[in-house]
């Protein structure tokens, strides 16, 4: 059977652009058809902005790679029309077990909060994830939406000018030139676009190697995340076992720094390691083996004129905590609505600088968390190992030590506190829904069939809860339509959005983040907040987030 990641999904086809006399100019070109590039393109096409995706191959990701997708990205994917299929295919888990040496030191249950459509996260191979996105692209094409993926189109030169970006693209038929008003570079951690533009990418290198093996087995291991510190089968190192769909298990083994990578990847070396881990009686088959090292780093700025970097091309983190693909999806979620307004002449170009500010804030939070996890998992000094082991030993006996065990802090979205796009707050309302926050989901019908986030997104909106408001407010071409809700028989909505207030008016951004909120209707204040949230209030855009 041919595996999904070995099948060409968007094989090379000659484009009319290759026969044009002068380079054809497109509104937006996305480079890279990984999870982030595809999400960006789908978001644009759904909003009728023509987009061309250039990819240097014609298949989904080789091997499982990113396998944990958290709730916020799943909510974004719902907005993009492909979240449900992923959740259905994915493996949902809540229990994690932590082992130290030969003992289980503790287990935890994520106990996700009730009243959300999506689970805390799912495990799903990146190749399935990308396949769902590619299917969505084909659906949009069938609906006549302006989206195109060009396989085996490799960008070999980029020339970023003030008014547009010119690209040279290599294809099986030879090179051609093409232009874009805007270029979104989603071409991964090794970003050729970034390199061709001579841009920085500095940070911290972690001197360690990890072996990832995907094995297919029929073992009856429970659907749990198992993490080992210093286990007998991988002394002095760590290990992770995680379930994926189709009977595939992800095994991560830390190998240390001074190893021969090519030799460690050979099945005759990998299989004995896995047998030692799984026990002699478990039958398994290797699907994919890879060795990776990692760095925590980011670009100084994600926006360079008309070139916008998103995902791993802009920032890279260690894999602990699943913050790579998850944060990249939040990048494009943040970027696309801003780009749409700027392209439509409804917001100043400086609105795009807030993409930089808000997502650098997110990237820094992710780098901080994943660096801390890495320092716990792979202690770099004798004393850090002593403290790490002390935490693990204590965690077996005393609850207080368990929050200190850090085998990855799982990805949660950041709040854009201090963003220049934020408007007024209302102090008696809950902190979790303050301006800058991603809107928490809540049921909006008693049978859990309708969800708040299903009603939000893609444009500015007025969320009116137990307050009378006009049906819409328009300011300079931007209209915010009303979504009316009641907290009657809906304690989750009340707890998340009202707190001690009698009613609430929320101004929501197109990316489902809160822009501003009040406990009563004030037409003038809402209009001002829309101006602020669209960057028209230029004086507020200096500096970064506090």
């Amino acid at each position, binding site marked *: 059977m041919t595996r999904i990641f070995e099948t060409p999904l968007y094989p090379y086809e000659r484009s009319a652009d290759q026969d044009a006399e002068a380079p054809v100019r497109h509104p937006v070109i996305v480079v890279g058809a990984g999870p982030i590039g595809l999400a960006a393109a789908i978001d644009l096409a759904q909003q009728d902005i023509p987009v061309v995706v250039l990819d240097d191959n014609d298949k989904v990701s080789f091997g499982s790679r990113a396998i944990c997708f958290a709730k916020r990205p799943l909510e974004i994917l719902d907005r993009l029309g492909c979240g449900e299929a992923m959740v259905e295919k994915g493996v949902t888990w809540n229990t994690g077990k932590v082992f130290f040496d030969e003992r289980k030191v503790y287990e935890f249950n994520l106990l996700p909060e009730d009243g959300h459509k999506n689970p805390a996260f799912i495990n799903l191979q990146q190749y399935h994830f990308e396949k769902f996105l590619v299917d969505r692209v084909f659906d949009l094409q069938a609906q006549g939406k302006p989206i195109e993926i060009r396989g085996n189109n490799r960008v070999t030169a980029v020339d970023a000018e003030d008014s547009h970006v010119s690209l040279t693209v290599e294809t099986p038929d030879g090179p051609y030139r093409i232009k874009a008003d805007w270029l979104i570079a989603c071409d991964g951690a090794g970003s050729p676009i970034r390199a061709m533009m001579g841009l920085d990418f500095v940070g911290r290198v972690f001197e360690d190697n990890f072996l990832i093996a995907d094995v297919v087995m029929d073992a009856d291991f429970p659907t749990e995340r198992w993490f080992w510190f210093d286990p007998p089968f991988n002394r002095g190192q760590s290990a992770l076992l995680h379930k994926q769909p189709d009977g595939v298990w992800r095994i991560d083994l830390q190998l240390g720094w001074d190893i021969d990578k090519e030799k460690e990847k050979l099945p005759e070396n990998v299989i004995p390691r896995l047998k030692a881990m799984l026990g002699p009686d478990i039958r398994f088959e290797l699907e994919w083996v890879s060795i990776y090292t990692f760095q925590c780093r980011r670009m100084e700025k994600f926006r360079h004129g008309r070139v916008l970097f998103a995902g791993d091309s802009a920032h890279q983190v260690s894999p602990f905590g699943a913050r790579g693909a998850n944060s990249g999806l939040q990048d494009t979620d943040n970027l696309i609505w801003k780009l749409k307004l700027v392209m439509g002449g409804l917001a100043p170009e400086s609105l795009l600088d807030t993409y930089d500010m808000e997502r650098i804030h997110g990237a820094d939070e992710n780098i901080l968390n994943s660096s801390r996890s890495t320092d716990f998992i792979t202690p770099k000094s004798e004393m850090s190992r*002593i403290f790490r082991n*002390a935490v693990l030993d*204590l965690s077996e006996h005393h609850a*207080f030590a368990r929050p200190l065990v850090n085998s990855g802090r799982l990805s949660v979205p950041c709040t854009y506190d201090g963003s220049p796009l934020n408007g007024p707050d209302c102090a008696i309302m809950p902190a979790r829904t303050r301006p800058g926050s991603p809107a928490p989901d809540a049921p909006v019908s008693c049978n859990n069939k309708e969800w708040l986030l299903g009603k939000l997104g893609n444009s500015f909106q007025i969320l009116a809860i137990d307050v009378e408001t006009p049906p819409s407010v328009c300011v300079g071409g931007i209209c915010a339509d009303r979504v009316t809700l009641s907290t009657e028989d809906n304690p989750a909505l009340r707890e998340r959005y009202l707190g001690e207030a009698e009613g609430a008016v929320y101004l929501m951004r197109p990316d489902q983040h809160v822009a501003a909120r009040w406990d009563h209707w004030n037409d003038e204040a809402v209009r001002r907040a829309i101006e602020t949230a669209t960057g028209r209030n230029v004086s507020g855009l200096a500096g970064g987030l506090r």
Partner: protein
Amino acid sequence: MSGLNLDPNLAKADDFYESLLAAHEGLTKAESDAFNARLILVLANHVGDEGVLSQALEAARLSRDETSS
């Protein structure tokens, strides 16, 4: 502001010191290091207060220009 107490606070200082040494008796250097690390974590959790803990980290550094509270 209630801060780190750097004045004498152990009612029976000699007794505590003796128990501390006794706890290490018979341990190897590695076992003692591990014990000390666990003890620090237990005490830090008991203190809890971030401000007090950061003052404690500072006090333990024995910076020369430190002014006692």
